[in-house]
């Protein structure tokens, strides 16, 4: 049975669906729900990848997305999997935000963890027990060393590299990004032009899907997103029916 490999972050994992709720409540100053993450816990049964498995029983849909994943992490997940498994028909590469980086974990440089500088202002991160020196190192990185443009190029390279690794093995490749790379048909950042060459393989990221069809963002977020901005089960189902399933069927020539 051929495999469809799905890689990504929390949006692809299905965080925000009713069986995968975990967010920080600012009023209560605490986390609500339980922390789920691959591989300890599989992705939500309501996420689009799980729906894909139900609709395509002749394929083995493997979703190894995990919450908080960085772009490098998603690339590494892809390479590690395709290098150790055969009979993969398609890889769905769901990129993450360009400012997700990989850093050494606190006290153990052999373990790398994803981290976003945007989390630093987040009360949830501030309330996470971490030594002062580690927090100071992160703050120094943000203030003095970080550059959006560098991170954009790193992110672009990870996507292009994944495309090369996957297609060199004669596996089909589709990708998406939560970043708005095209803004009214103009590239938001010059660097994104390099992705134009694989733009024909791109589908819309679930977090950017216009569920209302009228760019009614209030409706989109109130009905189809969870309160932490992740997409809920209703959003995943609509995205799956309207965007993902037709794209996958077209790519794999499934009637």
């Amino acid at each position: 049975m051929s495999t469809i490999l799905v890689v990504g972050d929390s949006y692809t994992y299905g965080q925000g669906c009713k069986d995968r709720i975990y967010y920080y409540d600012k009023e209560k100053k605490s986390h609500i729900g339980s922390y789920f993450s691959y591989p300890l816990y599989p992705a939500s049964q309501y996420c689009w990848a799980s729906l894909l498995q139900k609709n395509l029983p002749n394929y083995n849909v493997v979703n190894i997305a995990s919450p908080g994943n960085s772009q490098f992490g998603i690339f590494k997940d892809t390479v590690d999997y395709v290098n150790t498994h055969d009979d993969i028909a398609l890889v769905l590469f769901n990129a993450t935000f360009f400012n997700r980086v990989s850093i050494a974990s606190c006290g153990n440089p052999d373990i790398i963890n994803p981290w976003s500088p945007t989390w630093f202002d987040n009360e949830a991160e501030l309330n996470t027990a971490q030594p002062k020196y580690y927090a100071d190192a992160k703050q120094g990185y943000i203030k003095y060393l970080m550059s959006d443009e560098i991170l954009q190029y790193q992110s672009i390279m990870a996507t292009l590299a994944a495309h090369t690794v996957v297609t060199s093995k004669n596996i089909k490749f589709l990708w998406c990004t939560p970043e708005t790379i095209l803004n009214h048909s103009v590239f938001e950042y010059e660097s994104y032009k390099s992705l134009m060459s694989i733009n024909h393989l791109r589908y819309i990221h679930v977090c950017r899907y216009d569920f209302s069809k009228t760019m009614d963002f209030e409706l989109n977020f109130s009905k189809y997103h969870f309160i932490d901005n992740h997409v809920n089960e209703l959003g995943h189902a609509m995205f799956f029916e309207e965007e993902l399933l037709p794209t996958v069927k077209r790519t794999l020539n499934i009637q």
Partner: protein
Amino acid sequence: MVKRIILLGDSFTFGHGCSDKVHYYDPVTKQHVGGKMSPDFETKPSDYCWGSLIKKQFPNIEVMNLSKPGHCFLGMARDLINLSQRINLNSDDLILLNGTFIDRTEIAHPCDPDSYVSWAIGPASPMEMVTNEPEYINAKQMYVKYLYSDAVMYNQFLTSFMGIYSICNLYDTKFAYSLPKNVRLMGKLLDKFFNLKFPYIFEYDFSGNNDDTFNRTCYMPDLHCNNLGHEIYLEKVVLPFLSNKGFL
């Protein structure tokens, strides 16, 4: 035969160490030797580097040497992306990626956060671009001590390398590469790229018989290659490789 050769690389490909690009720190005298010998000292590759020598031997081939001293893999990838937006890359082009050391990355410029500079993570070098901003220096030290990971740097190398190869594929350009001895593609990736690799100039055995005395005559004290090193490398490595692959 290719019509254009595009070189991506660092100081070794730039020709740092050739007679028109001498600048190094002498640990014995603790003095800087050489220096800015011309206005374009840090921007125009040496007239004696192997890229410039190809241009002289093959006037019908356009050679674009985009290498920069201190460059990292990500910077090389960006150079190619930027170039692809300026010119029409095509099947008559050959991209030669002359890699660098894996512990190099890019960080925001100390004086201009919207710009960036290469940074060799490791023992501080007297030649390293420095700033008097103690917070900036402290941020670098903290990064190395608490956030740095070899695995992250390897991933940065690998994604940049594969990204460059991807761009070559997308524009149908030809591609070959060389890497320092301690920078390796791992696992199954090796097979695909094995035939596209040629020896790297740094640590190359110019003598052909491991004659250290002779090899030292091809290097400057800072271990960059001099005119002689570049000439021998061109004759023994680059031209035979390009010829065997049908690029010349």
